């Protein structure tokens, strides 16, 4: 009998979480810089990066 392959979510879970961690590392200085300088464009980029970092565990985890 052929063993059932684990789903894509399970196979890529750790990869997604590692990317998420890396995005947090990237978003952290941008959020601080954008906030202290009140720079609209940096703030927008930081939100996009942190938002994506938070989206990945939602997709990856059961």
């Amino acid at each position, binding site marked *: 009998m052929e063993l059932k392959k684990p789903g894509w979510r399970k196979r890529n879970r*750790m990869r997604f*979480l*590692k990317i*998420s*961690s890396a995005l*947090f590392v990237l*978003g*952290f200085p941008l*959020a*601080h810089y*954008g*906030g*202290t300088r*009140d720079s*609209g464009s940096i*703030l*927008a980029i*930081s*939100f996009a990066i*942190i*938002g994506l*970092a*938070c*989206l*990945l*565990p*939602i997709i*990856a*985890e*059961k």
Partner: protein
Amino acid sequence: MPLNILNWTLALSPVLVLLGGILLRGWKTSKAGAFSWFVAVFIAWRFFNCDARLLALANSKGMSLALYVLLIIWSAIFLYNVVEGAGAIKVISGAMQRVSEDGLVQCLLLAWCFSSLLQGIAGFGVPVAVVAPIMVEMGFNPAIAVSACLVGHSWSISFGSMGSSYNSIQLVTGIPGEVIGPCMAMVFSVAIFSTGFAVSHIYAGAKGLKKGLPLVLLVGTVMSFALWFMNRIGIAQLATLMAGAGGCLVLGVWALIHREGQSCPKLGRAVETGETEMVFGRAASPYFAVIFLTLFSQLPGLKKALAPYSIGLDYPAVQTGMGYAVAAIAKYSKIQLFSHPAPILFLSALFGCWVYGRKKGALSRGYGKMMADSARATVQKCVPTTVGIVTMVMMALVMSDSGMTNLIARGVAGLFGKIYPIASPFVGALGTFITGSNTNSNIMFGVLQYDTALLLGESGVLLAAAQSVGGSLGVSISPSTIMMGTSNVGIGGRESEIMGKTIRYCLASIALVGVFVWILAKYRVYGQ
């Protein structure tokens, strides 16, 4: 923001989403944390009039806080993986097994003292995962072994893992360690005794309670004093480790004195670890290094000389559209480069690699492999934890800086009034039950408890301490920790049975702590 049921429910909704996600949907902490972060940002922006700048700064503060805690977690797990990978945990545990033939003494020694000593080093379920299988091997019923470990080590969480939960409650409330540490140790004394009695009761019911009474009183006093003393002299990150070690020592001496017709056990006996023989001193050497380096970093002259070497970000003052103001802060979540637990743990791990890798004076070829394997295992274990902590801390900071936490606190203060100190540790336990971590619970509810205390005119220090103690005791009913125990002793699927056992002891301990906190609050033992 006016306090009414709609606003209060809105402010509470990120926590409700987190709770519902974990409890009702069975989500992992990282997913629930991320989802509740989205909810918190949306509510803060839409209903609490927070602009992008305030939210970005709150996120950045959250990541600053998370970094402080994660550095400890990563290095503590790395150290544990080095010790475990070398087979040294087997040697340390073997020494514990040989101390006594009495089941109750063995149960108290392993589930109450030794698991707490391990919590002082690693935490994150490691004590249950390591000690419960040893107890089963020694002949204990698996359900009793897991329940006793879960309840027995639950007093030791806050100061465990080199103080990650203790650090988190300081960071979110802004209370200095030298103020909250001794207060927490005082409140923990009730938990130490209650968990000791609970382990005796789990093992042999009322008979066990009666037989264990003098032992629990003696060892509990030693551990309570050690916990308080380590805080008093400013070495809180070693408080659990030293209290656990003190408990093991006293119980060991007790067992030796009361041995009937048996020869004295040899703790230094070499144990086969797979590749080589190892004696206790060599096995425990990285932990001796942790103790030595921590004490060394606390030498007054050295501490003063190294104090300026710290890193931390400055944050400006901000205000929401509703008028809720957040003050400017310099070096937020400051990391002391030489006294932060992470470099000490990391150096001790490297020392461990060197000691374990040595063969007859020369470094073995396994040295590099040991480090690489330990690093790989650390990444596997810590990445999901990292995402979970970062998302939850950011959510907590968004709630705090937008005024949502303050609004919840005002509602809770109105609801409970003067009896709130009794409920306070239950809130901490609820946080741990939801998130599976005392650290996360402190981050989520620490500010809420502190703000509620101030609104009620109670001591913020005392209720912040109650939060952490309740959070610590809540570990014994945390589903993830229970699963770690059951899966390691081969009774997977019997989690509800174990929780049915532990919840009684957990709630009783928390109730005792709550009453104790209420008495301390009533007689104003601690100032605001």
